[in-house]
């Protein structure tokens, strides 16, 4: 265990445990979730971490809907007032979100923001979860999304115009984009394999370690039963600031949990979305952050968790989010994409699609 100069808690390479050097691990809180950085060459971990932190700060400043000073918040405030010029980073995030909407025929829609707010997710999740009494409030009528086709976007001039009453929620696609950008930039800069994990959405770039990156698949990205334990999720522990001595609770603890598969990946993205983690109560109902843009309400409960591997974290996250919205139509849609996928029904039964290995296949 070691601590990087950037202040994140890191696990030392386990070179004494294996003939192959294990990657260095850094864990810290970011974007309202847990950020994990694996660096294949531990000697380059500090440099990779600096790049990841810079990327996360840039994404947060551009795309956060919870920061009133973010570029996205200013663009949302300017809805119906004419085109707003945006930065290159927000432009990329908008394009990624619109592309996701197009590829999913609107199942993943960035104009779902007002619907999510109407359901009660109108501030950071830590604040939503802390509401009293028991997160209950009057139920609000579901508010269908305006639809991504109402967004006027000029990619050449980077001009964004939103119709009245529409706000963008770049949410998951922006987080996945941050993982992709950071992994690519860090791997190119440090010259070794890098994996960035933002709240369970992973992106890998560069030459992976021997045997690939080993990833446990669980319902909750921070759950100990998945086989990898952390204690620094923002909602559970204070964020890392400055140099801190490592503690045993911070250490990634590999232990294979029963029923939780472990897969190895070499490149691209792997994302998991679910309906059991980011939940709250309102109007006597349990709600979550996956909203069907067509109804403005949470989709019918069909899948508990969906994992997909793809060429990028953005594509993987797009597929997992769409699958939860599509419900029973998800398997056919996922087969059409050709992407390997693992879907867990609400009763716990597992459906593996494409080239995704069956659970326990190599145990």
């Amino acid at each position: 265990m070691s601590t990087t100069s950037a202040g994140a808690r890191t696990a030392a390479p386990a070179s004494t445990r294996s003939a192959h050097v294990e990657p260095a691990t850094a864990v810290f809180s970011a974007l309202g979730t847990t950020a994990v950085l694996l660096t294949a060459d531990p000697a380059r971990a500090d440099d990779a971490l600096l790049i990841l932190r810079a990327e996360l700060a840039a994404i947060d400043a551009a795309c956060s809907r919870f920061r009133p000073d973010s570029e996205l918040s200013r663009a949302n405030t300017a809805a119906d007032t004419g085109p707003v010029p945006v930065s290159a980073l927000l432009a990329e995030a908008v394009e990624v979100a619109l592309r996701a909407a197009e590829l999913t025929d609107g199942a993943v829609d960035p104009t779902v923001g007002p619907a999510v707010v109407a359901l009660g997710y109108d501030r950071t999740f830590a604040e939503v979860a802390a509401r009293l009494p028991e997160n209950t409030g009057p139920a609000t009528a579901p508010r269908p999304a305006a639809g991504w086709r109402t967004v006027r976007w000029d990619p050449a001039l980077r001009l964004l115009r939103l119709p009245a009453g529409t706000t963008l929620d770049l949410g998951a696609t922006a987080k996945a984009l941050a993982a992709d950008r950071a992994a690519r930039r860090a791997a190119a800069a440090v010259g070794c394999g890098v994996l960035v994990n933002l709240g369970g959405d992973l992106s890998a770039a560069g030459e992976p370690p021997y045997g690939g990156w080993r990833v446990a698949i669980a319902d909750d990205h921070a759950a100990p039963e998945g086989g990898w334990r952390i204690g620094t999720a923002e909602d559970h522990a204070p964020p890392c600031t400055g140099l801190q001595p490592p503690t045993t609770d911070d250490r990634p603890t590999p232990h294979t949990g029963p029923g939780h598969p472990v897969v190895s990946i070499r490149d691209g993205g792997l994302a998991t979305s679910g309906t059991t983690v980011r939940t709250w109560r309102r109007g006597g109902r349990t709600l979550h952050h996956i909203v069907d843009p067509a109804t403005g309400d949470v989709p019918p409960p069909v899948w508990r968790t969906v994992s997909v591997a793809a060429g990028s974290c953005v594509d993987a996250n797009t597929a997992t989010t769409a699958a939860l919205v599509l419900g029973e139509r998800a398997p056919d849609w996922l087969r059409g994409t050709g992407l390997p996928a693992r879907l867990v029904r609400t009763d716990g039964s597992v459906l593996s699609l494409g080239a995704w290995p069956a659970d326990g296949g190599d145990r």
Partner: protein
Amino acid sequence: MPLPEQPAAADRSVRDAVRRRERGLRRVGTTTRWVAAAAVAGTAVLGAGYAHALPGVALPTGSAAHGSGTRTGTSGGLQPAGQAPAPTAQAPQTQSGAS
């Protein structure tokens, strides 16, 4: 006897002058129309260019776009990874799950 010839010469001279004046007027008219057409076309081109370039100026509906010119993956759909996930019995290095 030059007197009978003088009216005929004068007539020819007048007719020539009239023809020259009419040719000149036609040239001026043609030139004016070309200049006017070029001015209209140039105004339209420059106006469209400035309207497109200035923030805050409404874009014609047909010129706005959804998505981007760099959305390389759109036509091919969601892109697969170079290698599918493989099962492993080794301990995980990280974890994927909902957040």
